[in-house]
């Protein structure tokens, strides 16, 4: 059978896919708390912004995170924060299949007929990152687009759809 073609998530996904985040009267099945930060002493915050080819913030993207180590999923839209940030509360994952710790990131937005996949790696895992087969497949000068920046309270992972810092996207 032929695959059903993808179509864009469009600009109006929020009340269907992330209703509680956007204050619609419908229960969310997924949110940005992969863990409850109040219950989890090792909780970290991952935040970021999504930029278009002109370097402008994208206010209507939806980001999904899959942590295959802990088998946890999160989903958040960029339309509710004043700086159009996405924010996730999670813990740092362990290694899966001998790879460096990472999170899968799936990106949806108006202007994408089909979603994009990328990975978030951690800057404090230099030794594991150096051995990681996927990172090593990426041209050296683009690897940094996959590695989050450490900040006081967590990690920042910006996504650039195009431009000099264009994020590496994967065909998985």
């Amino acid at each position, binding site marked *: *059978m*032929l*695959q*059903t*073609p*993808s*179509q*864009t*998530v*469009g*600009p*109006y*996904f*929020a*009340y*269907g*896919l992330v209703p509680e985040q956007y204050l*619609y*009267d*419908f*229960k969310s*099945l997924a949110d940005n708390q992969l863990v409850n930060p109040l219950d989890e002493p090792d909780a970290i915050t991952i935040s970021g912004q999504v930029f*278009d*080819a*002109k370097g402008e913030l*994208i206010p*209507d993207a939806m980001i*999904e995170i*899959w942590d*295959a180590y802990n*088998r946890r*999923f999160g989903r958040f839209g960029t*339309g509710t924060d004043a700086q159009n940030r996405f924010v996730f509360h999670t813990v740092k994952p362990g290694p*899966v*299949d001998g*790879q460096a710790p*990472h999170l*899968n990131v*799936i990106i949806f*937005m*108006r*202007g*994408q*007929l*089909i*979603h*994009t*996949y990328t990975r978030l790696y951690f800057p404090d895992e230099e030794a594991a990152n150096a051995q990681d*087969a996927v990172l090593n*497949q*990426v041209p050296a000068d683009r690897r940094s687009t996959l590695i989050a920046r450490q900040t006081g309270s967590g990690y920042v992972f910006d996504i650039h*759809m*195009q431009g000099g810092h*264009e*994020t*590496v*996207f*994967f*065909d*998985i």
Partner: protein
Amino acid sequence: MSELGTNLFDRDVQPPYLSPDYKSTVLRAPSKPLVVIRQSLSELTGPVFGDINLGALDHDLTRNARKNGEPMGERIVVHGYVYDENGRTIPNTLVEIWQANAAGRYVHKVDQHDAPLDPNFLGTGRVMTDANGYYKFYTIKPGAYPWGNHYNAWRPNHIHFSLFGPNITTRLVTQMYFPGDPLLQHDPIFLGVPPKGRELLISCFDLGVTEPNFALGYRFDFVLRGNKATPFETV
């Protein structure tokens, strides 16, 4: 030995990232080629929603947001199966649904189209496929609406869907269209799909599921990416 895993996106039916007639792809499409990676447990796992209790009316958009009466518009029932490419049905998988109301207006605050909101219609719901990979839900036929892509641009009637399947490689977000819609041939989002894939996005009128004196029926099947063929052992 062939490699285990899921087939890649079939680029003969899947739309490209850059599709200039759909103007907002120009600034948002990746410009560099995707990096193909070997699938691992990182990709061949994904969220499981099988144990989530859906609301009793999540599958009925004509009833799940009533305030003081029934929503306006033409009641319809949409049903079908979720398959993988190998023709196997996918049980217990989540199907999320959102759409405009009968007048072509979304509840979303960003939608400023000058058409009425319906106090009795939210336009979102969800359903889980059953043990046979079958789903069915009730809704109101969504209206067409204008958008800013080009002069006199109108979206054809459509329902948005989000599906997961067994892992993150099988993730699908798509739109279902209605048979015979004259706007399809003018819609750059629909036409962004290669010709070979377009028919797969158009539902079929289904008299068999049409409910007398109640609702017209439409059939729409989903096909998610399937497992790579496993070779037979040669003796």
